[in-house]
């Protein structure tokens, strides 16, 4: 099939369908796309061509001697393009020796007529005919085609009607570029404020422009007019307004539906304000939207075919959709795409793509979160699974003899064991330690050898690269690699032979100084698959846990004791080494930031919330320290071998101004936080400990974490060596090496390490490594995906929290009332953290009717008329009666949790202060139990209720089935039902005519 240039421009989305294969793109068509549709669409086309799964090729017809046609005098560009493409199609047909029929698809009627019957075997048809004839079953494609056609028609109509302009036109590209160079305009990425999407947006400066200008802060874009059709995430060009028009950001807690501008609050300091004059790069993606309910449709009125839908993401404006299915789609979450945004229209135009699921349904909402974060989780295809090794009981996977020769065999020489959370399936890492004959110690970190099974550029590799990471949602996970690898052949399970990549250090017996390091591929057999708690017990000398370890169960007493001693020695030695390694890092003037590490650790354990630390065991630290050591040494190795194309991870030092809130908060409690370097920060955080209230320290740490920038992957060729530094871990070079099962970056690092080893051996490297530029692009992709993974994890947790509280009546249910800590003060409310559920949220001190909160003598809160006054670290609410109540930072209050349902967006948690005293827990044991358990309970409970609902449905089906058996009715349509239906019809008809 050969698409015409116009088809490629307008229907590229349909051509992207994986079912459509064997498309020949002509160079003429591609260039037309490049010139007329800009870079974004052209890149899409390029990706399509690159994707091996699509079987698409580009034919450079203009460079082919017999296909090139010069443009004739007076011939229009379009005509010439069609002619070129057709002649190339004919050539292609003859080139295949007339054996393969070629279909050229075009929208131009004239072309169909002119060439339709010119050459036998080359068919010229319109796109609609093509879909009808060749893909009658591909319903999605048909629907998409319809909606594209319709939105195009609309657009044409619209351009004919001359509306008043809603927005200023964008400036041409040359003007923008010149403006940016001269410093008149500023380039940046548009960030819409989630809570005040209508009015506030900020532009984060980007690139060189921020260096020359003295602006440090972001630029405020106030109102939709000034935003000028740009959407969250776009790269925009901004012109600064004169100083007297500058505005301040609002610090009040806005409720999305109420207009809080009217209340006349004093906004904070004016900040640079600007307006958008042009968009350099549109960052449109698929959006999840909700159609308006019936009543709303009626009020929208006149044009029933154009419907304004509300995106799930607050930051995206409403989108205008042309569809006839609006009513049918009312209760569903739907994916749409934006097509255009003319200066004459208030809202962007879009088209409908597909349905996700019902509103409020767990699966539908999860799908929404996935689409909003651009995560695609289709099951692995057959072609991908074909590349996988087999491991079934009949045909068990075995170590091949070739590999046995190539690899270092540690199965008999080393005691290898893994320590992971209980019930973990994908064991990436295992540890070993032993004494050498020369008196030194040998520490080994063994990582699953994923790259042995995932060849570069294989289907599975491409898939893993697109996924980039395993996604952990609150109740499920989406693996980066198929489970045969992640949970079986690659997982370093106990008692089986596995391939590994190992890093082994020779350490001095007493000083633990690193003497030698060895990297390489190995074969290992993990002797024990321990979990953290058991390892900690062993370390503490409690031997009774032995019964929990399956490996020990079937042993007789004597060998058991011997093996146990061996293991306990190894764990003890390991902990000792880890302590020393850590102490050494501390001595080097760097102290680890506890907050960051807790986060990392928790991530590794797949916990849901970063703020809820599990009982911190020393074993956690030991394992983490070994991993950090391995990562660090691998980073050094690959950087030495490939100074310009190694993938490392850096953590840039934070901006000092972000710490101001932290410093103020700490001051309220009388602590001083020194943020000048990571060491001073960690020290002062350690000191900022309120003996009466452990949560204060936790909150301060989480604030510090938030103020810091994120750690990022990067390619060493793109940065100077000083910038490699990892601020949080205080290491000069760091990378991710230890979890190749669930991170693609680690796979790259593994390949780099292997190439580095073979380079050392002067062997020709088999694997072609990424160049700096490709690697940089890949890093950007992985960073993006990681951010999406974090976001989706957070959103899914929130979803579960809401579903948990949704069915509970906040007035009566005991569980909805909890203790909260104030951690930030705003003009009309406070931000509250609830340690028990790990929820952070806003509580208003002034409600919609303008009433403020006041507390009676029994400290119960009521709404009364009055006013609020905000100070640096406290807020006072004074009623007209003269009573006043004060809320300070880190005050404990009792809050009631309820859910604010929302049709178009995700539900939100609402907090209401009901008493200005700490909540007294009736059952103290509940609090002690720790919130983490509760968290997983929460997930479980929601999942169960969903399952029950499904079960209930199934039950009704069963009932019908029973009836059927009872009365011996035929299963299909019986004559009786048929007759009944006819009778119904008849009745209807009669009644209808009767009414008329």
């Amino acid at each position: 099939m050969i698409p015409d240039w116009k088809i490629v421009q307008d229907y590229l989305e349909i051509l992207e369908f994986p079912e459509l294969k064997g498309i020949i793109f002509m160079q003429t068509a591609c260039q037309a796309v490049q010139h007329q549709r800009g870079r974004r669409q052209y890149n899409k086309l390029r990706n399509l061509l690159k994707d091996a799964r699509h079987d698409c090729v580009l034919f450079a017809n203009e460079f082919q001697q017999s296909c090139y046609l010069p443009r004739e005098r007076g011939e229009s560009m379009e005509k010439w393009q069609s002619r070129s493409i057709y002649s190339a199609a004919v050539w292609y047909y003859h080139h295949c020796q007339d054996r393969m029929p070629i279909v050229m698809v075009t929208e131009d009627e004239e072309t169909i007529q002119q060439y339709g019957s010119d050459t036998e075997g080359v068919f010229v048809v319109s796109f609609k005919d093509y879909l009808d004839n060749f893909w009658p079953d591909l319903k999605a494609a048909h629907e998409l085609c319809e909606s594209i056609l319709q939105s195009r028609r609309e657009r044409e109509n619209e351009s004919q009607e001359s509306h008043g302009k809603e927005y200023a036109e964008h400036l041409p590209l040359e003007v923008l570029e010149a403006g940016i160079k001269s410093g008149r305009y500023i380039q940046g990425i548009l960030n819409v404020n989630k809570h005040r999407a209508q009015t506030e947006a900020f532009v984060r400066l980007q690139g060189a422009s921020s260096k020359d200008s003295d602006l440090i802060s972001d630029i405020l874009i106030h109102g939709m007019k000034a935003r000028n059709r740009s959407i969250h995430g776009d790269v925009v060009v901004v012109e600064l307004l004169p100083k007297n028009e500058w505005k301040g950001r609002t610090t009040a807690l806005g409720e999305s539906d109420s207009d809080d501008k009217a209340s006349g609050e004093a906004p904070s300091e004016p900040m640079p304000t600007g307006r958008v004059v042009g968009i350099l790069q549109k960052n449109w993606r698929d959006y999840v939207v909700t159609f308006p309910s019936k009543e709303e449709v009626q009020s929208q009125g006149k044009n029933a075919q154009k419907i304004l839908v509300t995106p799930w993401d607050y930051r995206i404006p409403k989108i205008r959709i042309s569809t006839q299915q609006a009513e049918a789609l009312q209760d569903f979450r739907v994916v749409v795409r934006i097509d255009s945004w003319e200066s004459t229209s208030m809202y962007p135009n879009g088209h409908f793509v597909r349905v996700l699921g019902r509103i409020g349904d767990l699966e539908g909402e999860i799908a929404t979160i996935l689409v909003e974060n651009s995560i695609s989780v289709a099951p692995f295809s057959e072609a991908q699974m074909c590349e996988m090794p087999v491991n079934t009981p009949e045909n068990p996977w075995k170590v091949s003899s070739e590999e046995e020769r190539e690899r270092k065999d540690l199965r008999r020489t080393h005691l290898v064991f893994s320590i992971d959370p209980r019930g973990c399936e994908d064991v990436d890492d295992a540890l070993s330690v032993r004494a050498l004959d020369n008196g030194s110690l040998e520490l080994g970190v063994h990582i699953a050898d994923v790259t042995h099974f995932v060849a570069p550029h294989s289907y599975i590799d491409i898939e893993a690269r697109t996924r980039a990471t395993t996604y952990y949602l609150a109740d499920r996970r989406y693996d980066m690699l198929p489970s045969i690898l992640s949970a079986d052949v690659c997982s370093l399970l106990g008692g089986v032979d596995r391939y590994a990549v190992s890093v082994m250090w020779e350490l001095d017996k007493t000083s633990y100084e690193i003497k030698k390091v060895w990297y390489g591929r190995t074969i290992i057999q993990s002797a024990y698959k321990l979990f953290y708690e058991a390892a900690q017990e062993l370390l503490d000398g409690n031997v009774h846990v032995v019964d929990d370890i399956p490996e020990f169960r079937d042993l007789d007493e004597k060998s058991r004791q011997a093996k146990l001693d061996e293991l306990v020695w190894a764990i003890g030695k390991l902990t000792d080494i880890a302590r020393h390694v850590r102490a050494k890092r501390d001595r080097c003037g760097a102290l680890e930031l506890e907050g960051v590490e807790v986060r990392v650790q928790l991530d590794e354990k797949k916990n849901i919330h970063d703020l809820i630390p599990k009982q911190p065991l020393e074993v956690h630290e030991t394992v983490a320290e070994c991993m950090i050591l391995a990562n660090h040494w691998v980073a050094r190795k690959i950087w030495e071998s490939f100074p310009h194309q190694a993938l490392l991870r850096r953590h840039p030092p934070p901006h000092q101004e972000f710490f101001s809130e932290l410093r103020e908060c700490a001051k309220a409690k009388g602590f001083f936080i020194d943020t000048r370097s990571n060491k001073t920060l960690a020290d002062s955080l350690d000191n900022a400990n309120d003996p009466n209230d452990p949560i204060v320290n936790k909150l301060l740490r989480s604030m510090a974490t938030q103020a810091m920038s994120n750690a990022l992957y990067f390619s060493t060729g793109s940065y100077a060596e000083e910038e490699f530094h990892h601020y949080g871990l205080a290491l000069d070079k760091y990378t991710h090496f230890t979890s190749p099962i669930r991170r693609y970056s680690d796979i790259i690092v593994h390949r780099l390490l292997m190439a580095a080893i073979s380079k050392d051996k002067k062997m020709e490297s088999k694997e072609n490594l990424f160049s700096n530029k490709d690697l940089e692009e890949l890093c950007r992709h992985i960073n993006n995906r990681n951010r999406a993974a974090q976001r989706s994890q957070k959103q899914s947790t929130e979803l579960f929290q809401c579903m948990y509280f949704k069915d509970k009546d906040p007035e009566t249910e005991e569980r909805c009332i909890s203790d909260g800590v104030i951690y930030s003060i705003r003009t009309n409310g406070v931000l509250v953290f609830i340690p028990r559920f790990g929820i952070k949220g806003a509580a208003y001190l002034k409600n919609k009717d303008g009433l403020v909160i006041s507390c009676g003598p029994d400290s119960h809160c009521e709404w009364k008329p009055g006013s609020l006054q905000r100070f640096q670290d406290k807020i006072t609410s004074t009623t007209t009666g003269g009573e006043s109540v004060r809320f300070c930072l880190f005050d404990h209050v009792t809050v009631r949790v309820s859910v604010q349902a929302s049709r178009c967006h995700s539900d939100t948690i609402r907090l209401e202060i009901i008493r200005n005293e700490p909540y007294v827990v009736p059952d103290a044991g509940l609090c002690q139990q720790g919130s983490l358990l509760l968290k997983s309970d929460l997930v479980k409970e929601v999942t169960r209720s969903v399952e029950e609902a499904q079960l209930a449905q199934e039950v009704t089906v069963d009932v019908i089935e029973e009836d059927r058996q009872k009365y011996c009715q035929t299963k299909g349509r019986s004559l009786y039902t048929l007759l009944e239906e006819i009778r119904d019809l008849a009745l209807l008809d009669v009644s209808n005519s009767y009414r008329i």
Partner: protein
Amino acid sequence: MAGLELLSDQGYRVDGRRAGELRKIQARMGVFAQADGSAYIEQGNTKALAVVYGPHEIRGSRARALPDRALVNCQYSSATFSTGERKRRPHGDRKSCEMGLQLRQTFEAAILTQLHPRSQIDIYVQVLQADGGTYAACVNAATLAVLDAGIPMRDFVCACSAGFVDGTALADLSHVEEAAGGPQLALALLPASGQIALLEMDARLHEDHLEQVLEAAARAARDVHTLLDRVVRQHVKEASILLGD
């Protein structure tokens, strides 16, 4: 911003060439009768004319004469109509002077100047149409002209430009590719010995890539040599027929 794709994924350049491919080269020797040697060359759309006088006695001040070798005098000019924007003056501007100096350096290295002490060799080059790689075209034209004049040289001097885009070295850049602003390297080579007569680059290029670009330019220069050699042989054959052997 709407960056032109200089090298497509399929490995084609804007004008359909592959990365290492030269533009079409056509050349003729002995185009003027009154000069001692002359040649005309077309490299794609770049066209250059070269004329050589000498060796003859030093013109002007005798003080310039060198006791042990000949003085090579080069002058470069480009026609006012040769570029997209019309030029104000054909020669004497900074760029022309620099080009003249470069040509002089190149040919001082190639011509056996010590055979003609106290004499002068004039090389005049004019570019009629500039579509990238003017230096290379000038050197190639001048080589043919010097050969036509029968002045003894060590070897042909063959020149070619090369650039670097997306990790690939491109040989013989056209104007569009030069204008894109990437690094550009001009190389004049004595192909038989592989010695470099002149190497010039005025943009930043990572050290790691230099070898690759240099290699591409050298290979292109050898290709040019094959072509020029063919032109010379053809010319000699025609001339000998005219002389009536």
